[in-house]
Structures are given as C-alpha cells and as structure tokens.
C-alpha cells in the first residue's frame, strides 16, 4: 500500500485516498483501520503525520520545558494542545488588549499547530459546574459564565488550526441522565457554533472538530457520534475516554463511536495515554492523541485504580520516566523489572549511574544519570521535571513513529501483539 501525496482528485479505485476538507486535508492509507495519515492544516499548510500526539500546554506553555528546549526532541514536535480552561484569565486580562492581532505571537506559539479545546485534559472535573442555562469556566474571580458568543470571539482572536466548540463539559463519573443531557446540550452548542461561523470569517481556515460525549454509556456515545457526524464538522474529538474504563468497555465504546464516523475525517481522543490503550485506539482508527491523561487523585481513589496512569507529562510531574518497550525499537534494558515506567524517587536509584532508559538517544539519557535525576527530585529541584519531560516526550514520539512505520509496513497487528506479549 502506498501513501498518496496530496492531490485534487479522489480516485475511488485506489485504496489510498486524499480528502480535501474545508480547510484541512487528510491523506489516509488505508481507509480502514488502523490508518496512517497526513493532516495538512489550511492556514499554515503545515502537516502532521498521524497517528500522533499533541504536546500539552497550560496557560500557553508546556509546564516544565521552555519551547526552546523542545528543540532537543527529534523529530520536531510541532502540534500543541491549548485549552480555554487555563487560558481564560490571560486572554481576558491581557491578550485581548494585545495590539498585534495574533494571539499566537503573544504566547510565543508561532510555528506551531494549535489544537484548541474548552476543557483542560489534565484536570478531570470533580463535579458538574454547568447550570441548565450556562456553561461555566474557572477564573481568578471564581466560576464565570461563558456564552457561545464570547467563546467564539476568543477562538477567533487565538486563531488556532483546529478548535472545538463550546461544550457541556462533565466529569468522568456522572449520573446517567446528566450524560444524556450533556450529549444533547453539546449538540445544540455545536449547531450554535456552526451558525456563528458566519460572523467569524477568520475562522474559515480553522478546522472545527465536533465533540463526542456520553461517558460510559454505549447508547449515549453512539447517539453523540451519529448526530455529530451529521453536522458540517471537519473532524471529531472523543472526549473523556479515560483510562478509568475497563479495557473491554473501552474497546466497545471506541468501536461504537468509530462505526458512526466517516472514515475520511480525522479523529482525536482525550484524557488517556497509556501505551496499551493507545494501541487499542490506533487499531480502531484514532489519529490524534492528547498527550496527557489525568484522573485527579479523587477519581483514582473513587475508582480504586492502582496504577498511576498519567502520561507522559504528568508522569514527569510525579517523578516518573517512561521506559516501556517499543517493538522493533530499542528496548529499555531494565535491570529491575519489566516496568513501563520507573519512579526516580525510589532510593534504589541513589547511585545508579545508568541513564533513565538505557538505549534511548534523547538528550536526558545521553548526558544524565538516574542518580542525578534522583538527586534533583530529592532536593526538590526543578531540573528533574525538565529532564523527565524531555525524555518522556522523546520516548512517546518514538512510540508513535514506530506505530506509523508498522502501519505503513502492514505489520501493525504484529507490532501490537509483540507489545502485549512482552508485558504478559
């Protein structure tokens, strides 16, 4: 199967196809699942190879590394995720007065592909804030109502490459009726958004991703996917697909949703990132992952999860280095166990002069030792999280590169099986 470059013609006889959307183009090969693609976004004509993940940002910047430090990652990471939840205060107090029209410059994000959502994927809501009439957002002045109109104006000023409309964002764990209400309300807000696009001509070159809600309800997810699909959207975001779900439930929900979505539109998924679930999602045809996963501690306890499932940035925040096995790539030569991640807080690393992940070629592994990172953590020095983040991002990118290669070579199922067998 060859990967077709961008062209204006759709040749239905060929398995590979190119689909120009209103503002972005995704070349998909093959049309089934899993698939690799090239997402070319209208404004900047920058392209992104999928499946891929986004670099998480808070308040417009990655929490632990400067944008300059991201240069050490190879190949270059160019796609970042932004959310109104963390940007709201800065946008309202500062950015809206910025004399230059481009907010991108204000955040130092020129040259990056911006994916914009309402919710912060790092923060799972402990409760439902929105009322029947209003969506609410946290700000320094407390919870503020936000209307579609204000939301769209902020999106227009930010001018992202991909954005999601205002939604009824709900916690992972909700009574069933709220899940259902959220699906309905989100659809209404999507319709409002599409209507409002007329008043925001600048947004014509941004891609609109409809958000699929429903939490753990199969029927809810199906309906959300089906209805969203009927609207004029350029892609989809599957929200709240957390790792709190049992694997079989997760696979069922994914399969249900994907069944309703047209193959030629890109699919993004949020709030998880552990490798085995990533592989499941890729198998079902998901293209873009959000690069973080969080259940907040409350939810972990509530759902009695034992594993720390936060990837890859929150892993760094907790002092963990990712060390999982990438079939066909380098194996992290663990002397301790077949761990998918190691906590550098552990005293066994006190005098361990090995790199975080032997075999990894990232800057942190080339020049630093576990002993040093352990020292940095135990002395509460910030550099620990810088190094862990850079390593974790590199390893995660290697993982996605390997996924793309294996799909291209038609060996994805072998790749997935090899990974799963290794951890049996």
């Amino acid at each position, binding site marked *: 199967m060859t990967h077709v470059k961008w062209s204006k013609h759709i040749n239905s006889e060929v398995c590979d196809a190119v689909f120009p959307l209103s503002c972005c183009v995704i070349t998909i090969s093959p049309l089934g699942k899993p698939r690799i693609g090239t997402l070319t976004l209208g404004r900047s004509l920058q392209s992104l190879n999928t499946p891929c993940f986004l670099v998480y940002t*808070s*308040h*417009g*910047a*990655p*929490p*632990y*590394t*400067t*944008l*300059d*430090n991201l240069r*050490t990652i190879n190949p270059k990471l160019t796609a970042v995720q932004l959310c109104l939840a963390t940007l709201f*205060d*800065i946008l309202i*107090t*500062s*950015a809206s*007065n*910025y*004399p230059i029209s481009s907010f991108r410059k*204000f*955040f*130092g994000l020129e040259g990056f592909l911006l994916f914009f959502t309402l919710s912060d994927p790092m923060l799972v809501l402990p409760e439902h804030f929105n009322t029947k009439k209003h969506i609410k957002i946290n700000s320094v002045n407390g919870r503020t109502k936000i209307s579609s109109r204000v939301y769209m104006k902020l999106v227009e000023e930010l001018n992202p490459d991909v954005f999601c409309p205002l939604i009824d964002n709900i916690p992972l764990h909700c009574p069933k009726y709220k899940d259902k209400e959220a699906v309905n309300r989100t659809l209404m807000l999507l319709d409002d958004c599409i209507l409002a696009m007329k008043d925001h001509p600048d947004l014509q070159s941004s891609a609109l991703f409809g958000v699929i809600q429903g939490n753990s309800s199969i029927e809810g997810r199906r309906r959300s996917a089906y209805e969203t699909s009927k609207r004029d959207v350029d892609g989809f975001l599957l929200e709240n697909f957390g790792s709190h779900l049992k694997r079989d439930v997760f696979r069922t929900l994914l399969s249900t949703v994907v069944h309703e979505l047209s193959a030629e539109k890109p699919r993004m998924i949020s709030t998880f990132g552990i490798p085995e679930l990533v592989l499941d999602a890729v198998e079902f045809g998901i293209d873009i992952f959000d690069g973080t996963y969080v259940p907040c501690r409350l939810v972990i306890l509530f759902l009695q999860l034992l594993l720390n499932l936060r990837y890859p940035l929150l892993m760094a925040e907790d002092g963990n280095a990712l060390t999982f096995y990438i079939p066909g790539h380098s194996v992290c030569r663990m002397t301790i166990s077949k761990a998918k991640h190691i906590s550098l807080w552990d005293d066994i690393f*006190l*005098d361990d*002069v090995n790199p975080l992940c032997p075999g990894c070629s990232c*800057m942190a592994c080339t*020049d*630093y*030792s576990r*002993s*040093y990172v352990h*020292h*940095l953590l*135990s*002395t509460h*020095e*910030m*550099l620990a*999280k*810088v190094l862990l983040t850079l390593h974790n991002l590199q390893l995660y990118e290697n993982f996605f590169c390997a996924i793309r290669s294996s799909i291209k070579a038609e060996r994805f199922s072998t790749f997935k099986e090899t990974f799963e067998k290794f951890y049996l």
Partner: protein
Amino acid sequence: MTTKSPLVFSILTECGTSKARVSRMILPHGPVDLPVFMPVGTQGTLKGMLPEQLEELGLQIMLANTYHLGTKPGTEILQKAGGLHKFMNWNGCLLTDSGGFQMVSLLKLAEITEDGVRFQSLNDQKAEVMLTPEHSIEIQNAIGADIIMQLDDVVKTTNPDKERIEESVHRTTRWLDRCLKAHQNPDTQNIFPIVQGTLYEDLREKSAKDHIERDVRGFAIGGLSGGESKDDFWKMVHLSTNILPKNKPRYLMGVGFAEDLVVCCALGVDMFDCVFPTRTARFGCALTRKGQLNLKKEQFKKDFRPIDENCPCNTCKNYTRAYLSGIVTVLPVACHLLTEHNIVFQMNLMKDIRQSITKGKFPDFVRDFMLQVYPTKNYPSWIIDSLSAVNIKLK
C-alpha cells in the same frame, strides 16, 4: 600536563582612573573573563536551567554549595559519578564554597571550636557532626571544582566583640594552613583563602597579610554583604583590594546587586557570587538596569513590552511582560524563563563593564549606569564616596 598551573591569571587592561581591571583566568575546565559574576547552583543545578542552555549563553563559571552537596547526594555518590562536573553535565568551571557559611547561617545550633564547627545534622538521625577544615576539603575534593574555598571562621559584621573577631582572624589563618595541608588535588583544584576581620581595619589588614604569605593563587574577601552599613562595606572592600596583590584574582563573596557590582569593580574586585538573581526569579522578579520588575503586579498585565527591549535572551525575544505576569504564579516554567533572563542580565552587565574598561571608558560607563538607576541624580552617599575614592566623580 601536570606542569601547567591550575590557575593562570593575566591582566589585559587596567582602567587608568579607578582600580578596575579586565583580566583572564584559565582554569582546568576553561577560561573565565574577569570581572565575572558567578550564579549560584546550590545543589548541583541552576534552578531549572539545562547546562546546555547555560553553555549557549556563554556562562563560564558557576557556584555549588559544599554543605548541601555533602549532605545530598554525599561524597560517595559524587565520587562514583566522577565528580560534580560529570554528575550535573556541566563542562564549564565550578567554584565551591566551604560549607562554613551555610552552617552558621542555616543551622540553629552551630558551635565553633578550634577543631571545627560542631552542629546537629539536618538528616533524620540528628547526629552531632563536626565540619573540620580537613572534612570540608575532603568533600570539595570529591566535588572536584576548579576553585575551592577554605573553611573560615565567619563572624557577623554586626558582632561588636573585637576579641572574638581577632580570634576568628587568627583561627581562619590556622584553618587555611590545615586546608592547604589536607588538600589532595593541588594540581587540579585551587584553594582560595578568605580575608576576614569584619569592620576592623587592623584585623582585615592582618588577615590579608597572613594569607598573602601562603602559596595561593587567588584571594577571597569574606564576611561582608551581611547587615553592615554600605559605608562600612565599601571601605572594607577598598582596604582589602589595596592590600591584596594585583597579580592574583580577588573574589568578593555574596555580592550581586547591580550597583554593588559596578562599584566593587571600580574598587578592583574580579569575581562575585550571589543567589539574588536566581532567587528573585523564583519570586517573579525580573532585573533591568533601571531596577527590579515584580511581574506579579497588576500593572504588568497590559504591558506588552518585553522585560528589556535591549536584552538578547530568549525570554525577551519570545514573551511580553503581560504574558509573563499571567504565568508567573501558576506555571513552573515561568521560573526558568525569568531565571534565564536574570542570568543574561548579570552577564551582560559584566560584559559591558569589561568592554568599557578595555576601551578606556569605564568612568563614563559608571556615570551612565548610575544615571539609569538614579535618574534624578539622588545618588546614595556611599556610592558617591566609594567612586570618589577611586577618582570617579558622579556629577
């Protein structure tokens, strides 16, 4: 190359008016252009900055703290790692202090005896530990810095007890001898003695003259920048640099505010260190020639200028005061961005000082600098007096 001295010092240009001079010091890990400001990377790291970034900025030398590193990770780990340079991946020069100052200032129960400093360790066992000159040098040998400091008997400048201070001067010299004797790496690490004497001219003189008799390659001026009045401060610095030999570098410990750096360069100091620029970055403050900017303040939220329009650092290149103000309390990376700016600020200041001395325009530079800091010309009297003492007149 064991015949090469671990410190080679040469004066390049002397200011014709004041005591300032531009010089170059070559240490085992590379050259250092003087006068220099050395940022403090206490625990073997400089507040979230990657050593690679620091090298790119042109940083040549930084400090690490013996007391902290001796506790964590400890000499054994450092030896296993092959020294602090390898442990922290820093290829430039390092200077370590003796640990004495931290102990006296950080610990509640520190008792100074002729043997050393007895204190209660901060670790779980709360054992009584003794830091002796020999032990301090042992840790510093393990760390492997290019310049290491003697353990000195530090007395606060606010202590009026002259007998105690006289005792500390003599003891410091005796401890210097013990340090020199215990030193395991005289070919790769340079011990600097520390001139004490608080505010007593005769005692300072005695301390300096005693140290000069020893075979050392540089000198530190200690016990200042801690509570004494600025008038007393500059006079002691001036006195010390008059006595200390010109052909060896002079290091004034704990000085880092911009105007102090400028004045003390005029008084003939070559090296400085201070936690101030990196510490203040953590609290959201950015340094400019006109003073500190506390970016937490509301006024900056709509200020779309960079911290400093003339600053070449990445923070000023990419971000405005408004954005930094928005993230300074909520995002860890804000600290790195401000730290980078503040370090570049200090480095640029020192570079301008060196260039102006080289061009023979140092007095003009001093006048312009002070005018930026005090635009209404209400210069503090200590600045007027100290500069006047070295023939620089502020109009």
